[in-house]
């Protein structure tokens, strides 16, 4: 479904952030990219969505070279991207944003179903503005819902767990699992969350601008967790990256 070949990207100040990334994501699976903060995960997602352009390297979607396509063209080819930091709009209601994402008008029942998947009550939220009146966690869920509403094939979620409470999180996990079960779609999550890493088919560790490790979850996960030990404050297992 998605193939990245030797992708390089530098920040405006010249710092090399991605230094030759190669990776393949197959349809009908869930791939999780993880790695240290500042490792270039968000940058990689932006490159796939066309928000940033690589210095060199190629991006292929279903075998077609999409490196030269702009954001709109990639979206129309089926690339869907949930931002790590969602954008706010004065004057656009939640329902309208979901309809723009779906590319068609939605019934109240459909809007409620989408919002339910991210743990929001449809009746309460569909008329709310996607502006500063929503809390960080609320806007993050709306952001995820806009991507779940899309009729695409490659679904990218950049740290979807941020700001989501435990109860809604289970719902979110099932939403991802049912997306994964669609054979014609591919799911690419950027995450540090253990429960998301656990449901991955494949884990990719991005570190130092390169793919440092990749493999099936049962193989990679123990290595990540093994390195991290336990958190001194809460006793939870923590992943730490080289």
């Amino acid at each position: 479904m998605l193939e990245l070949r030797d992708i390089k990207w530098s920040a405006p100040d010249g710092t090399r952030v991605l230094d030759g990334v190669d990776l393949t994501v197959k349809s009908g699976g869930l791939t999780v990219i993880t790695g240290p903060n500042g490792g270039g995960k968000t940058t990689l997602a932006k490159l796939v969505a066309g928000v940033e352009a690589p210095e060199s390297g190629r991006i292929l979607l279903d075998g077609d070279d999409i490196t030269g396509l702009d954001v709109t063209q990639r979206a129309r080819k089926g690339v869907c991207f949930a931002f790590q930091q969602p954008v706010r709009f004065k004057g656009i209601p939640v329902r309208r944003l979901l309809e723009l994402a779906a590319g068609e008008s939605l019934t109240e029942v459909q809007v409620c179903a989408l919002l339910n998947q991210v743990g929001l009550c449809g009746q309460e939220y569909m008329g709310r503005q996607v502006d500063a009146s929503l809390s960080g966690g609320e806007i993050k869920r709306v952001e995820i819902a806009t991507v779940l509403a899309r009729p695409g094939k490659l679904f990218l979620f950049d740290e979807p767990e941020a700001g989501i409470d435990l109860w809604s999180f289970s719902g979110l996990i099932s939403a991802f699992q049912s997306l994964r079960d669609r054979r014609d779609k591919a799911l690419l999550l950027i995450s540090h969350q253990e429960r998301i890493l656990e449901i991955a088919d494949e884990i990719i560790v991005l570190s130092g601008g390169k793919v440092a490790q990749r493999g099936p979850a049962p193989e990679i996960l123990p290595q990540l967790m093994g390195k991290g030990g336990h958190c001194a404050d809460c006793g939870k297992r923590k992943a730490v990256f080289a």
Partner: protein
Amino acid sequence: MNSITGKFLETLAGWKGTFSGAYSVRENGSCAEMRSTPFVEITPKSGLSGLDIRILPGCRGEVVAVPACVTQGGIDDLAYNDFYVGAGAEATIIAGCGVHTENGEPARHSGIHRFFLEPGAKVKYIEKHLGTGDASPRAIDPETVIQLGEGAQLEMDTAQLGGVDRADRRTKAVLGAGARLVIRERLLTEGQQQAKSDFVVQMDGEGAAVDLVSRSVARGDSRQSFRSQITGNAPCTGHSECDALVDGNAKVDATPMLSANHPDAALIHEAAIGKIAGEQIVKLRTLGLTQEEAEAEIVRGFLE
């Protein structure tokens, strides 16, 4: 009334061949149709062009429509409408004005609307302004004067959404104790259009509150100037917000002024002027919209 007036009434005043409550339609400087109801008396002023509208105590949510239309060039219409709203009365007032030109001559409407609300009265005031027709200059200069008695409430929803070349919009309000004023302004200018909007609000009574939000979009070579002056002379709260999206060579200036003449007057102003945020456009494009579709959607939502 003529067919242009009919079209204006549909867009400006929700007219569907008839009005549900009391109304008066002004067309090219004179009264085309008028009706009073048991709770709303409309009478022409003597010696002055305009109306006295008395909304009596006991009125419960009647919709009163007093739109004004200028349907040809060469007309400079001036109307004085005074609204006297009795204690505890509740009503929705739809004013609004349409100016149409098609003979190459300029046209203008100036509406001076004064609202006197007795204690406890509650009014929703809706005012839309629209220009249509050929390239000759159209001007709409509304002046609104508001006096709110104790505990009275007025919500003003005012919009100028196209076709008006020159606008000089002035709103002045004085609030008594516990009175509440909410103002929502939406303004769009394009091409060579110019609009000035000026709000002066004075809170004289304890517990008075004003919330003024102006959103505007300036495109092309248009100019906008926003001025607000909120004065608190008693324990009161005031909030004003001016948000403008600027595109092309348009220019916008905002001059907010707050004066607290009492230590318990809490006044806030927020202003933001600038281009549409790039990240908003990117987000909508990731949903499949083009750059132009994204911009139009953002502007539409912003002015809605």
